[in-house]
């Protein structure tokens, strides 16, 4: 007899006529780990919001420990012992780790209103060691890497003695190689008999940590069962409703010989050192490295968002070193940044307003007024939305913030399709988007390469780079450590190169812009 901790019974939910969940029924056993998967918009977030007390279901009931559970607000969920580890980390970056851990209930000196600092730091240190995070409790959160921040969130859940912990896309902000660390914690939580719901698009991770799997598609439960009955292939076909024969679609043309982008000896002290490479027409050149290896910073320097002390950057032989982003675009560069919310999109604006932003000059008449030909720009936006299969309402009205992650990412890529760029820089172009959308993004990248665009492809997912690239550069500690041609791709060797000199680098925390909060703007 299995003891059920959470039971969803016939859950249904609609938003303004759109069915988000339909008759969803499944249970999670006590002390078990459930992997919940589905494409963006499949209903995972809706279901978790119901569990978290954000809104009630329209139909059906949720039971916790066999008792009916009707939270009316998120605080009810917290009281019921449910903790969320969110995709977007919810920490106060300006406060210390200890302050973050006890923000909703500081230990007091007796019954006075003053904080007992000593006890605070002692309790915090205990919690931190329980999640294997070895930093002083007084460290400001902004000094931590995204991975460490996640551990702080987990520690916070533990501080409330949460019995049910929900990881919502926990590894999206982590480099693949760094994900090993949280897994140990999850195993530890599991061993302590806590119930875990693990939501992720990284299906290998889900398989690795889960006891059971539940797959949602279009608001319905498609399948559920022991994880040993699942493979990545089955998970994908359940999620998308069809089989994806090959994750990385084939490209019909190899790299050309004309050199489009030349980077020579680019150096910025503390960030990157002596970076030189060439990027050719129709080539997809991967850049692999850990967090803090300088891969994103290099892209920012090439695009002109950050400066470099020495070195030259040329496009088609023309020296473009030190250009502003504005000038870089006119020189033929395009940049899909790693944080689409912070740097890729105007979340509050319409889809069309995002798509035509970099190419507004192309739609403007002459003269000082520079009136925009709105019909022409809308026509273009519609064409891009169609080409990239962006699932959206009318592009002129639909706000980007209401699109799913995959469709948002397509908008970020789509806005560069009319600037006539010779070089497209992609920084984590598939981060946090689902399998189906990933496949479509890969197809778009291939098509652009076939049409002549040179592509610089930065990713922390090695699988993705070996599947997509003609060549891979490996960065570590601000330098290029190795270069691999497609026929020589060897994951083991690439990883070794990425880890080389990490000991000297001392963790590689400095100057990283993973969350974009310390990049020069």
């Amino acid at each position: 007899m299995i003891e059920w901790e959470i039971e969803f019974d016939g859950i249904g939910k609609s938003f303004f006529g759109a069915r988000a969940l339909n008759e969803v029924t499944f249970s999670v056993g006590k002390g078990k780990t459930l992997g919940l998967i589905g494409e963006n918009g499949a209903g995972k977030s809706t279901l978790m919001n119901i569990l978290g007390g954000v809104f009630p279901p329209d139909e059906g009931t949720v039971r916790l420990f066999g008792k009916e559970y009707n939270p009316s607000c998120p605080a009810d969920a917290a009281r019921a012992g449910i903790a969320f580890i969110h995709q977007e980390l919810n920490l106060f970056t300006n406060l210390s780790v200890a302050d973050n851990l006890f923000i909703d209930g500081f230990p007091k000196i007796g019954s006075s209103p003053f904080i007992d600092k000593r006890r605070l730091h002692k309790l915090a240190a205990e919690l931190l060691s329980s999640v294997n995070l070895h930093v002083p409790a007084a460290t400001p959160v902004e000094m931590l890497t995204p991975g460490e921040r996640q551990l702080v969130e987990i520690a916070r859940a533990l501080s409330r003695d949460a019995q049910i912990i929900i990881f919502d896309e926990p590894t999206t902000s982590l480099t693949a190689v760094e994900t090993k660390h949280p897994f140990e914690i999850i195993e530890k939580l599991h061993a302590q008999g806590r119930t875990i719901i693990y939501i992720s698009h990284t299906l290998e991770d889900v398989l690795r940590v889960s006891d059971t799997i539940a797959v949602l598609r279009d608001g319905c439960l498609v399948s559920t069962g022991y994880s040993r009955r699942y493979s990545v292939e089955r998970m994908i076909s359940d999620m998308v409703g069809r089989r994806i024969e090959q994750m990385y679609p084939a490209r019909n043309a190899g790299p050309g010989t004309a050199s489009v982008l030349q980077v020579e000896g680019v150096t910025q002290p503390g960030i990157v050192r002596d970076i030189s490479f060439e990027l050719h027409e129709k080539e997809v050149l991967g850049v692999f490295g850990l967090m803090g290896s300088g891969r994103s910073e290099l892209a920012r320097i090439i695009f002109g968002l950050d400066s470099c002390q020495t070195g030259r950057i040329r496009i088609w032989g023309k020296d473009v070193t030190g250009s502003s982003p504005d000038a870089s675009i006119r020189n033929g560069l395009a940049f899909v940044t790693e944080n689409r919310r912070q740097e890729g999109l105007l979340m509050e604006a319409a889809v069309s307003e995002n798509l035509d932003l970099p190419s507004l000059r192309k739609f403007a008449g002459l003269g000082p007024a520079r009136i925009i030909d709105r019909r022409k720009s809308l026509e273009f936006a519609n064409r891009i939305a169609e080409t990239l299969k962006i699932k959206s309402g009318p592009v002129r009205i639909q706000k980007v913030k209401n699109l799913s992650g995959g469709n948002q990412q397509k908008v970020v890529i789509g806005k560069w399709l009319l600037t006539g760029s010779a070089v497209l820089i992609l920084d984590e172009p598939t981060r946090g988007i689902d399998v189906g959308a990933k496949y479509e993004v890969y197809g778009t990248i291939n098509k652009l390469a076939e049409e002549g665009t040179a592509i610089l492809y930065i990713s922390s997912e090695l699988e993705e780079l070996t599947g997509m690239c003609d060549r891979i550069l490996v960065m570590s500690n601000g330098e290029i450590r190795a270069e691999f041609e497609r026929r020589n791709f060897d994951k083991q060797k690439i990883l070794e190169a990425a880890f080389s000199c990490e000991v000297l680098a001392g963790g590689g925390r400095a100057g990283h812009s993973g969350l974009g909060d310390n990049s020069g703007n």
Partner: protein
Amino acid sequence: MRTGRTLLRLPGGIVLSDHFVLVLTVVYFLLIWSIYPHMAARRNIANLFSNVWPLLALVIGQMFVLIVGGIDLSQTSIMAVTSVLGAMIMAGRFDPAKFEHNPLWGVVFSEQGGLLAGSGWAVPVAIMLMLAVGVGIGFVTGLAVAKLKMPPFMVTLVAMSFFSGLAIYLTRSENIMHLPESFIAVGKGSIGPVPSAMLIVVTLAALAFVILNLSILGRWLYAVGQNIRTACVSGVPTGRVVILAYVFSGFCAGLGSILYSARLEAGRPTLGRNLLLDVIGAAVIGGISLYGGKGRVLAAVYGVLFFVVLDNSLNKMPLEFYSIDIIKGGIILLAALLDALRTRIASRQTVPEGIS
């Protein structure tokens, strides 16, 4: 959620409509009219509208800065300093009793008037100077915000202190009277039945509308206000756009100064001293967000109408002079509260994320 929906159904969407502030103003006007019938008298209406135009010029300028996520507290000080400078050029006569000990006596102006007094060029040059000084101050504050990355609140607060101080220093706190008739006509005269102030400000509003709604610059302004980092990555020349917003605000302040000075028939060093709350209040009540990225010309118009009607009605009431600001503050707070409620209802209408 449930309360939101019933609230929505009741007033037929008026609460959520873009014209909500206009409806509010009209309702308020009718209410006051029922108590004070002379509210709707022809003279009062004319007076009411004559108060709209200069304020609207300021609010439109302020709106550009608010759209890029900034704030321009220096507008009123620009008015003061340009009012004084313009008058120093064109005034026909300076009273020796008041100005004899001014350091500029005999240099810029004397008993025979300002620098260009009596010349046909006096008024056009003074007007150009007033606008140019507004633009210049806007350029400097814009530069400090965009290039030195100084907080707009601080930069413009300091500019406000500096330039309002300068206006008082230049005149030793005396009003400069005896402005030329042709200058006064800019603010008080009319072309046919149309007041010239209205003509000027409606032209300004039309220009602002074209910039915001039809031009590249408009799209860039909104983009910078919504997310300056995304705008930068998308090739928007963010620095130039921010500077232009402050320059436009300074220009509008100069224009407002011309209209107010002409109406008061004086170069006044304390011009606009109590106007800052009206300008920013009207902008916010009209629906222009202090967080940037939002703002329409129509919103500025509605906000100004609301303020002018409010002011006018308070003057009609048998209130003690000392209590007017308290009541005004209370009503503005109420309007802002209503707007906040409205925004909350509107935000509940949007579908949560992840549901496409």
